[in-house]
């Protein structure tokens, strides 16, 4: 068969040359479909269970659909703690993300754009944090917080250590090294003349940072915000170790305990309703912002 070279522009107006359904594409469709079928079943099954009664869940085969949708399961799950967890997670994820991205923007700016003696050393110091397994910091932090708790008790102040603030601080710090790394490479990619031009126009260095650099860095900030929120919404280990009070549990931790309780209270459907309450908001956000989230998850990872 003779092959004819077709310039790209011409090829695109003759789609019959590149049919969309070929053997190769059938293989791809088969492969992708094979991968997403379990996902559809998993979500579908969880939804189905969350709308059953406990008796149905136990008595009828798992693949049957609910006889009558029990929307009240969601209401009950929300009232029995999932609502509180939801609010805690929202609060913790939001504040820690804003704090971490802000602090990292501040630190990354001079490292990336103001030449000074120790800039490289400081960056290397921060980068150590990206590689550290979280297991390595937990025990000392735990005892430091216990010491603070005891000290507050001894002072007999009404102030107590709220686990939610502990998590906010830990999540903020946990993300700093990565955020600084991404923001500094972002700042480095912007043209050098920007601040000089601002200085000539009479802007102070801080104004040049705040009104010129930050707006230009918005794409990077957006990616890190999405990533940070997902981290705060989903984090499990620190929450497991550091949350004391049942009313201060986050969604991942609370669901874990809800699962434990389900053994005794025999309320499985409530657990499934809780799982969906935790999953639906992030899934909606992801559906709406698919491209941004995808970009966020990819950011920086390939440069390391």
């Amino acid at each position, binding site marked *: 068969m003779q092959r004819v070279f077709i310039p790209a522009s011409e090829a695109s107006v003759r789609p019959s040359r590149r049919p969309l359904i070929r053997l*190769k594409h059938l293989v791809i469709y088969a492969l992708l479909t094979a991968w997403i079928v379990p996902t559809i079943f998993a979500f579908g099954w969880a939804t189905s269970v969350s709308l059953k009664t406990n008796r149905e869940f136990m008595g009828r085969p*798992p693949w049957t659909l609910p006889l009558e949708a029990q929307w009240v399961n969601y209401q009950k799950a929300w009232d029995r703690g999932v609502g509180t967890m939801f609010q805690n997670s929202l609060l913790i994820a939001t504040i820690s993300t804003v704090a971490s991205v802000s602090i990292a923007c501040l630190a990354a700016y001079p490292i990336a754009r103001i030449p000074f003696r120790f800039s490289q050393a400081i960056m290397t110091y921060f980068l150590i944090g990206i*590689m550290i397994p979280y297991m*390595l910091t937990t025990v000392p932090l735990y005892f430091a917080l216990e010491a603070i708790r005891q000290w507050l008790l001894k002072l007999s102040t009404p102030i107590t250590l709220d686990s939610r603030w502990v998590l906010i601080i830990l999540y903020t710090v946990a993300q700093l090294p990565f955020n600084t790394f991404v923001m500094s490479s972002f700042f480095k990619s912007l043209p050098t003349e920007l601040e000089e031009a601002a200085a000539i126009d009479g802007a102070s260095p801080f104004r040049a940072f705040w009104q010129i650099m930050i707006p230009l860095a918005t794409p990077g900030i957006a990616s890190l915000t999405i990533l940070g929120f997902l981290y705060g919404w989903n984090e499990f280990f620190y929450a497991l170790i550091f949350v004391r009070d049942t009313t201060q549990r986050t969604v991942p931790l609370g669901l874990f305990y809800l699962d434990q309780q389900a053994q005794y209270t025999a309320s499985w459907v409530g657990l499934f309703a809780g*799982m969906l309450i*935790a999953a639906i908001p992030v899934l909606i956000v992801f559906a709406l912002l698919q491209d941004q989230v995808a970009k966020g998850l990819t950011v920086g990872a390939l440069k390391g």
Partner: protein
Amino acid sequence: MFQKARQKLIIPFILPQLILFTLITMVPIIATVAYAFTDWQGQANTTPAWAGLVQFKLIAMDPQFMNTVKNSFFLMIVGGVMVFLPAFLIAWGLNQPLLLRKYYRFLILAPVVLSVSVAGLLWKWIYNPSFGLVGVALKTIGQALNIEPLAKGVMGDTSTALTAIIIASIWHGIGTWVLLLSAGFERVPPEIPESAKIDGASDWQVFWHITVPLMWEVIRTLLVLWVMQALQAFSFVFVMTGPVAVGGPLNSSQLMGTFVYLMTFGSFKWAYGMALATTMMTVIFVLSTITNRALLRETVEF
């Protein structure tokens, strides 16, 4: 003048992070490594005494720890194949002009945004031999064909628990790897594979001899990332087996990460746990460095 004025920003800008990072990351790390050389255990108010390398010697002789190393390596190698093979194919597939591409992508990536506890609990119940969607089916097959692990439930058998957990965690996490590999595919300029095709190369030849070498750097970075993550794994095993029988049944799914947790917050052997964490960090550092070096190829410039 302009540079001078800017110098004033350096300290106030860097200081907040420097303080937070030092106090909440670096000081605890140093403390962990230091306490690994003591005999601290039990109540918090006991005073630790210097013990030299005792904890590390105990680790070297601990058959339970060796078992966790074995399991963690199983996760790293078998899990690695189970992640990267499909992730590579999916990323390559999603890179083609497909109908419904967006929907496929959404459904493949969606589990990534779920919390580990949602994903872990969901799969734990899916596997349940009495009530779970897959578990009940597997039980029927297992009873019919007399396959004991399936009849008993995959989470309840020592030979299948870890694999079942790995499958759940891959279902959850594959999206990130697909995305990162897709970004790698997108960095390959489309003209190169196209011109090779015009020269008569088959799809497979193009893929193996052009696309893979061109994105080798990306693959290498991701494999190093995988090694680091796999060896630190904790949450899926904890959520799916815990909190009473973490790493069960009979430690068959015990990983280095869950073992550190059990020794510290479970058994209060603080020094031993910290020595384990230090050992774990060393293993991770050594293995990720080896992976990085071993996969070094001459880079193809484009």
